[in-house]
Every structure is written in C-alpha cells, then in structure tokens.
C-alpha cells in the first residue's frame, strides 16, 4: 500500500515536472522566455553554452524574487543553425509555449528568418548575429543585438591598422553580406581618417585557386591585407600567398583566423597574422560572477564561448527592464525600458539583484554586462570591445583590446 502511494506520488511529481507551466501558474504570473540557440549544426560549438548561460540567468533572476513581480519561465529549442528549422522552433515557442521573448539566435540567416515571426507577434528578439541588415529590418525596435555588426568589425580593423602604423592597406572580401560588410566598414572609417585603400578584390566562393585574385591585390603592393572572409577560402588564399613569397601582414576576422586555420596551414604560414574577435567585458564584476557560475555549471571557463556571456546578458537586461516597467507591464512596455536600464546615465550595476535594489529606490540604473558595457544604439545594437590576437608560433596571443565609438 505504502509503495503504491509512493509510486502514485512519484508519477504525479514527474507529470508536474513535465508541465512546468501548470506548476508555476498556480503560484502567480510568469514571464515566458524562449531560448532558441544552435544546439546542432555549424553553431553547435556555441549553442549549448548559450542555453546554459540563459538558464543560469533565469535561475539568478528567480532566486532574487523575480522581476517586476513575475518569475521567469524558460522554454528551450534547437535552431539547428538552419533558418527553416529555426522558423518551426520559433513558431512552436510563440504559438504553443506563448513566450514573450525569443533569445539567443546565432547565425544571421536564422535571425533574419525568425525576426518576421517575433515582430508579427510583438515580442522581444535578442541575437548575436553580424549581418548589418538586421538593424534596418527591425522596424518596431523589438530586436536587440549583443554582438558587433560586420560593419563595426570593419571599423575595428581600421582602428587596429592605424594603431599599428600600416600605410597601404588593401581589402579582400567574400562576396556576401558578411564579407563585404567587414571591408566596407573598414574602408568607410579608413577613408574618413584620410587614408586610402590601395586595392580591393571581391571573390567568389568555392574556387580551387585564388591565385589571380592574389596577383591582382599584390600588384598594388599593400603592407597589410584586410579580409572579410571565412575559414575555407582563407585557408586556400593564405596557402597560395605563402607559396608566392609575398611579405605583407594580414588582418582577419576571428571566425576565419582561428586554431583550425593554424592546424590546416602550420605555424610558419600563420606567423604574425592579426586575428580580431570581440571579447567579453572581462574587467567587470558582472563578468567575474558569470564566469564563476558558468565554470561551475559547465566545467569550462566563460572565455571559451564569448556568446555565452551575451546570452546571459540578454536575460539580465530583459529582467531589469521588467523590473523598471513594473508589475503587469506588457511586452511592449518592457521592451521600451531596455535601453533605459542598459545605457548611461544611471548608477552602474553589475547584477540583477543590485539593479533590482537600485530600482526599488527609484534610482536610474545602467547595467554593465558580462559581455560588454551593453550600451544600445538607436538600432538596438550593442558594441563589445575587440581583442587583437597575433598568431605567434602557432598560438593566438592577445596583444591588445580596442574599443570603437560609433
């Protein structure tokens, strides 16, 4: 008899676990958050960590008593780094789970595919994608970007080239929005500083050889070549460049100039390449706290996945906006407060609990995130700092951190 009761109780408890919405709805109102990160596909090295970071932030907010009188409730889906799969998952999150925010899309193609759905539903969308088009297509100001745009990467390249004293830069770009965005951003800022770009080549993907493209760019005798490229084409270009015996330097985005590139080409070819990637807000206490929690939860340091800190900041800034908007605020009212709680002016706060306490005192807060200072511009785009890594003896060594102002 006792055992039977135990089994019944266990089954009931398990059923409740499976249906968390029922469990919570009895305790009062909740704010539903959908995590849509790439657990599989090309983004899979980052997606699971991002999902974990979102979960950590949700737990942190709930432990502090919720935001604006509401607890957060999390639903997770895998966007598979594929726009079609992401659209299905987003529809499920919006229509079945009735989420009020979709957080964590990674690939630009995925974000662009999901945006029309979240905009139509009038809910918040937060991403880490690079495509400049995301800024302008966001007509209702519901889309928030926590990673630098490709255009800003280009601006950072210009800052780095000026700082390192290069005089005759040339640019090469993969023929798509990301590649061209990088070099156009570079050219815009470089020319504004009064510099000139010696030559530019836009190349097509999946060629067996890029020798004629290289020949064209090397004819201008550049001292540095600035790239908007991906790993496969960069591998072929650098191999042929090394074999041809030219001696210019390279500035390459971090997603192309990474340990895989060194593995493919060897340390001799890669020596001295400058690789540029955004870095987290490493000196802030918010980063220190997040790093500790993330390391405890996953066994890996937060620096192994820069997108995890961005995903964490998504929840914290959203929760602060909820707190600022007060109880029973609509999604639209919460969304309208996001810029206010993240940007200056205001008391700098480094955690949700700190921010909640300040807001309770009717003070204005400025959340300094784990991923960046988290100041959103008029498009809802944040601008993290950029780390300058130089490949030395096959290792990426960080030599500098640059900030750009837009």
């Amino acid at each position, binding site marked *: 008899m006792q055992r039977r009761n135990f089994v019944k109780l266990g089954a009931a408890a398990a059923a409740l676990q499976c249906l968390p919405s029922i469990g919570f709805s009895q305790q009062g109102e909740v704010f539903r958050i959908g995590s849509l990160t790439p657990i599989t596909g090309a983004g899979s090295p980052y997606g699971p960590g991002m999902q974990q970071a979102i979960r950590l932030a949700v737990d942190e907010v709930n432990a502090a008593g919720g935001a604006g009188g509401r607890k957060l409730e999390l639903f997770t889906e895998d966007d598979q780094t594929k726009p079609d799969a992401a659209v299905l998952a987003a529809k499920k999150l919006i229509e079945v789970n009735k989420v009020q925010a979709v957080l964590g899309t990674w690939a630009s193609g995925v974000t662009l595919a999901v945006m029309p759905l979240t905009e139509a539903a009038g809910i918040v969308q937060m991403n880490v994608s690079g495509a400049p088009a995301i800024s302008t297509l966001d007509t209702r100001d519901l889309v928030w970007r926590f990673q630098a745009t490709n255009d800003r990467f280009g601006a950072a390249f210009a800052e780095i080239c000026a700082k390192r004293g290069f005089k005759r830069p040339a640019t090469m770009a993969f023929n798509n929005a990301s590649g061209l965005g990088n070099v156009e951003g570079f050219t815009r800022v470089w020319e504004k500083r009064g510099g000139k770009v010696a030559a530019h080549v836009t190349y*097509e993907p*999946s060629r*067996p050889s890029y020798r*004629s493209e290289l020949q064209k760019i090397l004819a201008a005798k550049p001292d540095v070549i600035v790239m908007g490229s991906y790993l496969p084409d960069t591998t072929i270009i650098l191999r042929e460049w090394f074999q041809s015996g030219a001696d210019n330097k390279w500035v390459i985005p971090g997603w192309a100039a990474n340990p895989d590139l060194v593995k493919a*080409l060897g340390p001799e070819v890669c020596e001295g390449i400058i690789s540029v990637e955004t870095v987290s807000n490493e000196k802030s206490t918010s980063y220190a706290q997040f790093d500790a929690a993330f390391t405890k939860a996953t066994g890996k340091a937060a620096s192994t996945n820069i997108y995890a800190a961005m995903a964490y900041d998504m929840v914290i800034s959203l929760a602060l906006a909820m707190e600022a908007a007060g109880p029973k605020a609509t999604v639209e009212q919460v969304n309208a407060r996001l810029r206010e709680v993240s940007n200056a002016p205001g008391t700098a706060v480094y955690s949700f609990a700190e921010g909640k306490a300040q807001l309770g005192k009717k003070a204005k807060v400025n959340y300094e995130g784990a991923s960046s200072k988290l100041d959103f511009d008029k498009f809802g785009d944040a601008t993290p700092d950029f780390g300058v890594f130089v490949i030395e003896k096959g290792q990426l060594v960080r030599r500098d951190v640059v900030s750009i102002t837009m």
Partner: protein
Amino acid sequence: MTWIDFANLLINGLIEGLVVALPALAMTLVMGVNRFPNAATGDLLTTGAYAAVAVQMLGGVPLWLAALASVATTAAVSAGSYQLIFRKLAGRPMVASMLAAIGLGFLLRSLISFFAGHDQRTFDMPLVRAWNFGGIRILPTDLLIAAIAAACLLVVFVLIYRTSFGRQLRAVADSADLARASGIRAGGLMLCLWLLVGALSSISGVLLGMKAIVTPEMGWESLIPAFAAMVLGGIGSPLGAVLGALLLCVVQELSVPLLGPSYKLVLSFLVLALVLLLRPAGILGRVQLVR
C-alpha cells in the same frame, strides 16, 4: 598589366584546366558509352579525397600512398555503383540513370558528412615557396599537380586509343548492338570502364584537395565546371573534354584584368554559349553522338 601578369594568369588557367579535365573526362566516358550524364562524378571525387584523408589520419602515411589507397577505394565504389544501380537501368531512358546518379551523389555526400563532419580537412604535405623566373611565379606543388593530371590523361588516352579495351569501348560507344553482334561482351568491359572512372575521379579529388581544401561539398561544386567543359569539348569526346576544360579555365583567368574576379564564372559560360551557338556539337563532338 604587363605580359608577365598575363603569363601568370595563363599558367594558373592551364593548371586549373588540367585539374578540371579529369572529372570532365570521367563524365564524358560515361556519357559516350552509357549515355547519361553521371551527376555522381563530383561526389566520387569527394569520396576519393576523403579516402586519402582517412588513410593519412590512420597514421603517418605519405600522400602518394594514401592516394593509391584512395584510387582503389573509389574505383571499387564506382564499379559497385554500376553493378548495383546503373547496369539495371541500362535499357531505360536517360533521365532514369541521371536521377539515380543524382541520388547516388546525395548518398555519398551525406555518408561522408555523417562520418567526417563538415569541418574542412587538408592533406599532410609540406608547403614550398614558388620559383620566380623574372616575375613569372611557378609553385612546385602546382607543377606536381599538373604533371600528375597530364600523366593520368596520357594513360587514359593510351588505354582508349591504343589497347583492345579501348577499341571495344569505342565500338560499344558507337553502336552497342553492333558491338554485341561482333562478339564484344559488355559486362566485363563496363566494369573496367567504371573502375577507370572511379580512379580518375579519385585522383582529381586528391589533386583538388592538394590545391584547395577537402570538404564534403568540394566535388559537387566542381561538377558544373566539369560538365561545362564536357559540353564545350563535344559530348562523348575524351580529347574534347580536356580541350574544353583547358579553354574554359584559361578564358576565366584571362578575363580577370578586364572584368575582375567576381565575374569569372559568368564569362566562362558566355564562352560555352557562344561555342554551342556556332558549333552545337562542341569543339570535337560528332553530330551523330548527340541524340
């Protein structure tokens, strides 16, 4: 632009052309004899490249040995696919075999990406600096690639035009019925042809991998240039396929100073369209082969 720059572009074009010529030749052989465009040629090429990568990963094997192992593997896959699929579709319309070939290509590509993932691979081989002859730069690796491709082409031409295997093959290509009536047994002959096609594809995969990188899509992406080269040279003509590949790639490279690298591919197709308008059978094709 000086003549030295043009000479460099010409050399690039010739080397690329030799690499494209191998899959074009493999396609044109199947087209001439089995009468369907083998859309799986590209993925056989990928299979060859991955087989070589796999052998190298097993441990410290030099590239030439890995390439030989890959030739054996890919030839077996190719002959097996004939035995299991294309032999049975022989009497059916061309579309049936072509669709089956597309399906086979998808199958091979999916198997490769399932087991090897989508990350790029490279062969373990030393990088050597280019020789510089007064501005004309020649990469030793490119020279090796060109020499291997040329040697393979030579072997295939000797096989086709100087051996009884080649005579029988050409007889079947001209008229399968007549060949059967003269006592040529098609079964073994076809298997040999498909072994040859597999070997050719595998070598072109390894050469392409040496020049560029190894990815699951590499063969699929080189299929269109190879197809264009085959049509340009005259469908079913082995020498035509090689000439077509060389012509397309040289024109592509020489167009760079005029149009820039973004429009390379477009121009090569313009050449294709022009040749077909002026000479519908292709450069060396015979009209009766195009049915």
